[in-house]
C-alpha cells in the first residue's frame, strides 16, 4: 500500500517535470540564448554572459517599427473585436431560440476557417469595395493597418464572443427586468446594469484579443501592406538568418508576461483574502497599500525581489563588459582549432610513416631515407587537400603553418586575428 503510494508520487512528480519541461523548456532555452555571446542563438556551449543582443534589438529599427505597428493594430483590434464580440454574444441571448444554433455556427465559423483564407478574403473583399467606390489605391481601404485590424477582428471577435457568452450565462435577466420595471430605458438598463456586470469579461476579452492580434501571422501576412507587424518582421528576419536579438525580444516578452501575471495574481489574492475576512468590497478595490501588503504576502515579496533583480541586472549590464571574456573565448577557440589541426597533421605524419615503412618493407630499404626527408614538405603540400581545410575558418596561411612548425605558437598569433575577427584588439 505504502510502496504503491510512493510509486504514484514519483510518477506524479515525473509527470509534472515532463509536463512543465515540455511547456516551459523552449522558453527557458530561448531566454538563456539571449545572454550568450555567439552570434547564432545557442545555449551550449556557454561562452560569455552578454547584454549586447538587447543593444542590437534596441537599435533594430525594423523590429521597433514592427512593434509599433503591432501595438497600433492590437489596440484597434481590441476595440473592434470587443464591441463586435459583445454585440454577437448579446444577440445570441436574444435571438429566436430556433435560430440560435444556426447563428452560433455562423459566428463561430471564423475560428474554424484558416487564417490564411481570412487574410486573402479580407484583402480581396476590401479591394472590391474600394474599386466599387472608385477609390484610389492609396485610400484607407488599402491601408495595411485598416485591413489588418479588420482581418484579425473577423476571428478574434469570435473569441471575444465566447468569453462574453460564458459571462452572460451567469447574468440574471431579472436584473434587466428590474431596471426596466423601475423606469429605466433599455439603453439605461444596458449601461447601468449589464455593462458593469460584463466588465470583468470585457477585460479578459480585451487581453485575449490583444494577445491574439499581437501574435497573429497568417492573416496579417496578406493584409499588412506597408505596415509590417512584429511577427511579419520576425518571419522576414528568420529567412535571412537570425541572431540572439530575437531571443532577447522573446525574453522581454516572457518577462513582461510573468510580471503582469504576478501583479494580477497578487491583486486578485489580496481581494479574495480581504473579502473572505469580511471587508467591504469598496475598501478592497482601492489602491495598493504597500506596507500592509508586504506583511503576509509571499507573492508581493517575490514581486519586489523580482523588481530588485531587474534593476540590479540593468545596473550590472551597464558596468559589466563581456569583451574580456569574449577575447578569452576567441583565444580558446583558436587554441582548440590549432590543437585539432596539429592532431590531424600528426596523425597524417604517422600514417605516412607507416606507409613508408610498409613501402620500404616491400620494395627495398634504399627508398626509405629520401622519402623520410621529404616528408615535411610533402606534409605542407598535402595539407591543402586535407579534410581539415574544409573548416571555413582555416584559411591559406594556416595551411602553410605546418611548414613553419617550430615557430608555430609565436607566429600563429600574428595570423589568428586576421582569420577570425575584425575587432581583434591585438592589432591595435
Amino acid at each position, binding site marked *: 500500500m505504502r510502496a504503491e503510494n510512493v510509486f504514484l508520487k514519483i510518477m506524479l512528480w515525473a509527470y509534472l517535470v515532463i509536463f512543465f519541461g515540455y511547456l516551459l523548456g523552449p522558453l527557458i532555452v530561448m531566454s538563456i540564448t539571449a545572454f550568450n555571446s555567439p552570434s547564432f542563438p545557442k545555449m551550449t556551449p556557454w561562452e560569455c554572459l552578454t547584454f549586447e543582443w538587447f543593444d542590437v534589438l534596441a537599435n533594430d529599427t525594423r523590429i521597433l517599427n514592427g512593434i509599433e505597428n503591432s501595438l497600433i493594430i492590437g489596440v484597434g483590434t481590441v476595440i473592434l473585436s470587443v464591441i463586435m464580440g459583445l454585440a454577437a454574444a448579446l444577440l445570441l441571448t436574444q435571438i429566436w431560440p430556433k435560430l440560435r444554433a444556426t447563428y452560433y455556427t455562423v459566428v463561430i465559423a471564423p475560428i474554424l476557417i484558416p487564417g490564411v483564407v481570412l487574410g486573402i478574403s479580407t484583402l480581396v473583399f476590401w479591394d472590391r469595395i474600394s474599386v466599387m467606390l472608385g477609390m484610389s489605391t492609396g485610400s484607407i481601404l488599402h491601408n495595411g493597418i485598416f485591413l489588418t485590424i479588420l482581418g484579425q477582428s473577423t476571428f478574434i471577435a469570435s473569441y471575444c464572443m465566447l468569453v462574453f457568452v460564458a459571462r452572460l450565462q451567469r447574468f*440574471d435577466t*431579472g*436584473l434587466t*427586468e*428590474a*431596471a*426596466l*420595471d*423601475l*423606469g*429605466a*430605458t433599455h439603453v*439605461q438598463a444596458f449601461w*447601468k*446594469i449589464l455593462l*458593469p*456586470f460584463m466588465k470583468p469579461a470585457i477585460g479578459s476579452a480585451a487581453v485575449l484579443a490583444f494577445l491574439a492580434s499581437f501574435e497573429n501571422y497568417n492573416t496579417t501576412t496578406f493584409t499588412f501592406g506597408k505596415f509590417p507587424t512584429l511577427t511579419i518582421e520576425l518571419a522576414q528576419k528568420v529567412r535571412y538568418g537570425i541572431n540572439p536579438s530575437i531571443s532577447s525580444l522573446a525574453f522581454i516578452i516572457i518577462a513582461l508576461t510573468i510580471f503582469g501575471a504576478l501583479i494580477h495574481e497578487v491583486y486578485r489574492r489580496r481581494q479574495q483574502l480581504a473579502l473572505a475576512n469580511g471587508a*467591504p*468590497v*469598496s475598501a478592497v478595490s482601492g489602491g495598493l497599500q504597500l506596507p500592509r501588503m508586504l506583511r503576509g504576502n509571499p507573492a508581493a515579496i517575490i514581486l519586489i525581489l523580482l523588481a530588485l533583480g531587474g534593476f540590479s541586472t540593468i545596473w550590472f549590464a551597464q558596468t559589466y563588459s563581456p569583451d574580456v571574456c569574449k577575447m578569452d573565448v576567441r583565444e580558446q577557440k583558436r587554441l582548440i582549432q590549432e590543437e585539432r589541426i596539429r592532431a590531424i597533421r600528426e596523425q597524417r605524419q604517422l600514417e605516412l610513416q607507416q606507409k613508408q615503412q610498409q613501402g620500404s618493407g616491400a620494395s627495398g630499404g634504399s627508398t626509405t631515407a629520401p622519402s623520410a626527408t621529404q616528408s615535411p614538405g610533402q606534409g605542407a603540400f598535402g595539407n591543402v587537400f586535407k579534410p581539415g581545410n574544409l573548416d571555413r575558418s582555416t584559411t591559406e596561411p594556416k595551411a602553410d603553418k605546418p611548414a613553419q612548425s617550430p615557430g608555430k605558437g609565436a607566429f600563429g598569433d600574428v595570423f589568428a586575428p586576421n582569420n577570425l575577427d575584425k575587432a581583434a584588439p591585438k592589432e591595435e
Partner: protein
Amino acid sequence: MTKGVDVDLEDVWIRFGDFVAVREANVNIKGGEFFSFLGPSGCGKTTILRSVSGFLEPSQGRVKIGGKDMAGIGPNKRPTALIFQNLALFPLMKVWENITFSLEVKGVGKAERRKRADELLDMIALSDQGDKLPSELSGGQKQRVAIARALCAEPDVLLLDEPLSALDLKLRQHMRTELREIQQRVGITFIYITHDQGEALTMSDNVAVMRAGVIDQIASGHTVYNDPATPFVASFVGENNVFRGTIKSIDGDMALVSTNRTGELLSRIATSARGKLNVGDSAMMFIRPEACNIAEDVSPAANRFSAMVKHEEFEGQIYNVFLEGSEGKEIKMSLVNIGKQRASAEGSNLTLEYEAKQAVVLPAGELASE
C-alpha cells in the same frame, strides 16, 4: 404618496404557442387593496403578474390600470413596481444606490437621491446599512431593501412575486406582518403572488385561487377557506378531509351525502353549488380537521362517523389524530392541546362528530395534488 388605483383584467388569455397559461381571467382589484393570487407552482399566477407589470402582453383581453388600457405600454412606463421572487437587487450597486435606482434613471441628483434613500432606509429600519452591498445583507434585510427600492419609484401598484419564499419560517411570519403594515401605511394597491395559503390568508383583503391557468374563486380569505367554490379550492387552501359519494337528499342549504365508506353524512352545500347539485349527483364532501371532535355520544347520527385510529402526531399546540379513511387516505383530526392526555389508543375505534354547517359539499371535481 399616491393612493392605489384599480387594476382590472378583462377576459385575459395568455398563450405560449399551444399552451394556454392563463384562461379567461376576469379580475377586478380595487385601489388600495391587498390582493393575492394563490395557486400551486405552474398555475399561471406569475404569468398574470408579468402581464400586469408589462413584461408580457396578453394574447387576448385587456389589462387596465387605473382604468387605462395598458396595451403597448412597456414595463418602464407603467405605474407598477415589481418585487421579484429572487429580489433581483443589483449586485454591483450599494444598498442606497439600489433603492434610488428609479430616481437615478430619471436624472435626479446624487445628493437628493441620498436623502431619499436615507428616508427609505429609516422606514425599513436599515438606517446605517446604505453603503453596504446587497451581498453583505441578510435575507430579511435584502427583502426590505427590495421593498424600499420598489416603493422609491412611487408606484400606484406594487406587485410581489413570492417575495418571501426564500426566507426561513420565523422571518417569513415576521415579514408577513411587516408587509401588511407597509401596505396600510402607503395605501397603494398590492398584488401578491404566492403558493403559500398561510401568506395569502393572513395578508390579503381578497384572494384569487388559481388552478392550471383558471381562476377558481375570487373572494376574501374567510370565504375561500370556509366556502370554497370548487373541490380544488377546498383541498388546496388549508387542509381538508375529502369524502366522495353521491347526494342522497337535499334540504334547503343542507344535503345528505351517502359516502362510499363512512355512511350517510350531513353537510352544507357550498354557495357556488347551490341549485346546481341534484339528488344522485356524485359529490365531494369536505370536513376540516379542526371541525372534527371526539363524540361523547356514540349513537349513530348524520354528523357522526367512526373510524379506526392509525396513529397520532403531536405538533405543539395541536394533536393530529390520523384515522383510517377511504381510498387509502387518512382522515385527519386536529385537537387543540389543552393539557389532556391523548384520548385514543392506536387500533381502537373512535367516533367523531362535526358541526354539519362546517362541512361543505361540492360537485365532484379535481382535487389539488399533494
